[in-house]
């Protein structure tokens, strides 16, 4: 039990006027004990070990399968230590321990990134809008902030209340990060438990961040019909001055839009965004702002020369952006102390003087921590720069692809540097003969990192060649995305909760995270459409939500035009940016709370156990790239939601794999009787890297299976599992592990009855009891038995 600030005390005699500055106040730190019908749950403000028991239950079933990205450790000056096979480092650590420690570190970074983002939003917006500003997520959302309530036991009412929550998150991150110090934690399983802890904290931070901005900036509030916005490289009007906002923090972007409105020139300037700031600015403005694309569209766009001013805030910024901007004559304005990029601090200088200095070229950009001034500088600079830069725009500084291609010696250094291992030399060969189709093909899979260029001994601007070759394709990128809607309504949950828990809705699939896709953006819409067509509820956020937009069906409609935006079967729901991932976790929690009436308040284990055993949800982070993605995924794991990543996700050092063939791992308690019964490998894995999108789809269908499925629900889930399997691997085939998921004959989908029965006989299948009230927690059994006794 570690409630922060539980003892507090105000020397009230020294409080003079409550609203003026209070001097001599002898520390009063408040912990919000609020009127809340629900009694306090068992684990308010959990610290590292509070939920360790739950973590160990999960981890003994989903053991890490380690994929060391390096066999060494170089964390301290005793190193490097060779940890290969059974060797240990100077501090005593083994390879498995070190991998889990690395994941802990990575998740600390991720959780800190979100926490600091949340804190900054909270500080800046609570200041602007008053700390008493009520949290308001729209009339259909009464269970606000389910993650925060579940984790901390606090029910925040105002922005100010959220400060307590962030204090807790920050303190716990620091405690947990400390565990990676050389000579602290010594066991992989406890590092993994800390990973889960950080993931849970990360989700709290996500929720605080998004709720703060929704509340303060009036983003769409759980609106299933939020407007459509333009997306793509082709949607930008290059004849206007162009301000590009990149990153995740809406405040500078919002200030730019506000400034333009104030000056009455909103129509004269293009404001477009990359990465999550793009989501946010469309959620903020809901009309003119445009989305260029996901993270990896940065160099694709900048190299076209279109943006005049690039305003960077935080996270997911190409770190060499100042140099890239300079190459095309654009300027950079940095707006946070987390990412100063070496630029001179002009925060307190006269905006006009700053603009002048920028135009003179004496500085390549400026650090402007005052966002209103930053906005003014950005707009003024864009207006002045644009006319001088028109000739640069949309023209790559490259005339002759063929001439460049002829210089290529086929040394393949570029390919050996390319994270995608793309066949550049082959494409150069073709290009040198005038056929640039090979280069254009590379465009599809290339994420514009420019590593190839650094490797080329002939100094061929390879990426520019690729971009040039794909010019037509680039300019035809014109799509529509539904603006991030924010949370799911309570009413929506009520409408589908039962069908999800019974399995009648085959599952909830969330496409989340970054843009490090192996096969290019198209994978994501293809998968999303497949599941939406199969009556899954499809959710999306961040760069994946953008990728889904980048597809057109035969009628030329994008998925957001094709499928509705409500939380219902056969829909595609864009919740918003990365921090809006909290609404995905929140929706799952709300099913347990609103539909199943489980107490929410500080009741983490019971709710997570419920989700793991009953709610068929899975996340697909197909292009998961960063430390934040790792933290978000960890939050899902602790909550009992499996996550599938793409092939690059292998680099996260370990997967959490169940072992379907290990029978004893899959026993659960039947809460009604207290007996241990076989529940089957459901969900089979908690963290899984698929090699291809086909595999991911089959796997996602499988990972939606839950021990609590009713026979009807199980049959529906198996129908999808089997039919996806057949679709890809042949109509004569069945998933080889099917027998593990059929409990009684009534689980068998009618359509495949005979075939499956035959298969089961060959597999020596035996009927298994199905358990309606499965749990992994003795506490739940005790509680249920106690209730029954009454």
């Amino acid at each position, binding site marked *: 039990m570690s409630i922060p600030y539980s003892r507090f005390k105000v020397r009230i005699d020294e409080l003079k006027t409550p609203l003026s500055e209070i001097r001599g106040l002898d520390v009063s730190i408040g912990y919000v004990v609020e009127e809340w019908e629900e009694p306090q749950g068992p684990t308010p403000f959990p610290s590292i070990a509070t939920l360790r028991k739950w973590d160990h239950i999960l981890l003994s079933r989903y053991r890490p399968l380690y994929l060391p990205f390096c066999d060494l450790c170089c964390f301290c000056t005793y190193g490097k230590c060779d940890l290969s096979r059974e060797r240990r480092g100077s501090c005593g650590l083994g390879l498995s321990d070190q991998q889990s420690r690395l994941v802990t570190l990575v998740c600390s970074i991720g959780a800190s990134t979100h926490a600091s983002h949340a804190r900054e939003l909270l500080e800046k917006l609570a200041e602007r809008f008053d700390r008493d500003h009520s949290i308001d997520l729209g009339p259909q959302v009464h269970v606000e902030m389910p993650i925060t309530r579940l984790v901390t036991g606090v029910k925040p009412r105002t922005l100010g209340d959220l400060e307590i929550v962030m204090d807790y998150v920050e303190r716990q991150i620091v405690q947990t990060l400390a565990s990676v110090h050389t000579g602290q934690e010594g066991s992989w399983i406890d590092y993994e438990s800390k990973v889960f802890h950080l993931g849970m904290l990360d989700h709290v931070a996500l929720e605080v961040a998004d709720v703060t901005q929704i509340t303060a900036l009036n983003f769409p509030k759980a609106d299933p019909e939020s407007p459509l916005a333009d997306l793509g490289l082709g949607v930008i009007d290059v004849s206007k001055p162009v301000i590009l906002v990149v990153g995740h923090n809406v405040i500078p972007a919002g200030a730019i839009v506000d400034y333009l409105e104030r000056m009455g020139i909103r129509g004269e300037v293009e404001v477009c965004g990359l990465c999550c700031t793009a989501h946010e600015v469309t959620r903020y403005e809901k009309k003119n702002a445009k989305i260029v694309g996901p993270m990896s569209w940065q160099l694709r766009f900048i190299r076209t020369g279109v943006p005049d001013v690039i305003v960077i805030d935080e996270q997911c910024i190409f770190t060499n952006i100042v140099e890239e901007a300079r190459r095309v004559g654009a300027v950079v304005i940095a707006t946070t102390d987390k990412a100063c990029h070496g630029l001179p601090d002009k925060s307190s200088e006269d905006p006009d003087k700053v603009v002048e200095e920028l135009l003179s070229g004496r500085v390549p950009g400026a650090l402007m921590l005052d966002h209103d001034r930053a906005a003014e500088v950005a707009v003024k600079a864009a207006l002045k720069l644009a006319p001088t830069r028109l000739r640069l725009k949309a023209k790559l500084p490259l005339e002759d692809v063929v001439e460049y291609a002829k210089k290529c010696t086929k040394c393949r250094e570029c390919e050996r540097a390319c994270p995608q291992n793309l*066949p550049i030399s082959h494409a150069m060969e073709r290009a040198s003969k005038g056929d640039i189709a090979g280069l254009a093909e590379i465009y599809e899979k290339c994420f514009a990192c420019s590593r190839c260029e650094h490797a080329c001994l002939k100094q061929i601007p390879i990426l520019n060649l690729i971009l040039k070759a794909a010019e037509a394709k680039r300019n035809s990128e014109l799509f529509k995305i539904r603006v991030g809607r924010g949370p799911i309504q309570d009413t929506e949950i009520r409408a589908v909760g039962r069908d999800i828990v019974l399995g009648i809705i085959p599952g909830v699939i969330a496409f989340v995270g970054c843009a490090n896709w192996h096969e290019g953006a198209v994978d994501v819409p293809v998968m999303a459409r497949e599941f939406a067509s199969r009556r899954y509820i499809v959710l999306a956020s961040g760069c994946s939500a953008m990728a889904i937009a980048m597809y057109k069906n035969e009628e030329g409609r994008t998925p957001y035009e094709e499928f509705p935006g409500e939380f219902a079967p056969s829909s595609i729901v864009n919740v918003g940016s990365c921090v809006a991932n909290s609404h995905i976790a929140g929706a799952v929690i709300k099913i347990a709370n609103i539909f199943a009436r489980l107490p929410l308040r500080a009741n983490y284990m019971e709710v997570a156990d419920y989700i793991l055993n009953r709610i068929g949800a899975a996340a697909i982070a197909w292009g998961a790239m960063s430390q934040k993605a790792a933290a978000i995924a960890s939050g899902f794991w602790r909550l009992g939601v499996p996550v599938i990543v793409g092939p690059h996700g*292998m*680099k996260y050092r370990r997967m959490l794999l169940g072992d379907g063939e290990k029978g004893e791992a899959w026993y659960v308690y039947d809460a009604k009787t207290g007996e241990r019964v076989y529940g089957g490998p459901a969900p089979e894995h908690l963290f899984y890297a698929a090699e291809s999108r086909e595999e991911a789809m089959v796997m996602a269908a499988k990972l939606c299976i839950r021990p609590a499925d009713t026979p009807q629900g199980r049959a529906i889930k198996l129908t999808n599992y089997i039919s996806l399997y057949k679709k890809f691997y042949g109509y004569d085939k069945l998933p080889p592990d099917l027998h593990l998921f059929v409990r009684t004959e009534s689980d068998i989908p009618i359509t495949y009855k005979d075939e499956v029965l035959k298969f089961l006989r060959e597999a020596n299948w035996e009927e298994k009891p199905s358990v309606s009230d499965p749990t992994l927690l003795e506490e739940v059994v005790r509680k249920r038995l106690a209730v029954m006794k009454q």
Partner: protein
Amino acid sequence: MSLEYWLKGEIPQPVKATLITDVKVLAGKIKQHKKPVVLLGSELYSLERLAGSDIVAIVADIANAVNADLTTSNSGIVQRLDSMGFKRYRVEFPMEFAQKLAKHSNYDLAMFIGFQYHYEWLLLNYLKHYAYKHLNTLSLEPYGHPNATWTMPSQPIPLWYKNLLALVEVLKT
């Protein structure tokens, strides 16, 4: 290039593959094993496109020559194996199969072909550390793989293709 591992960033580790440049030696290594399996990856298509030839058939020949099983999770490869009437294959997801290789199977040699470089690099590294007592691994890629027990060297696609053909010949004899 030839005698180095492939992607520059994936530097060799303290325990690293033996690079085999001689097809006869390669065949010898394979034949030492009682129960080999070949894993085919989804990138095989890219290799086929670059090589301009049917690699799946060659892999099937290799499997036939040494009585190896095949596994893949790629739908196209499955279809082609079906259509060529090849029976001794199974649909296996590589990650799950890697776990089986380490824990439940009695395969003693796993050969890899047609995977994304880093994906295979990491799967091999799992096996290198956690299954090395009973399992050897061999990369048949045109890209040298340091985490295998044995690997073909990094080589131009046409040369690699010729070597694969040569390997089939040697294995058949």
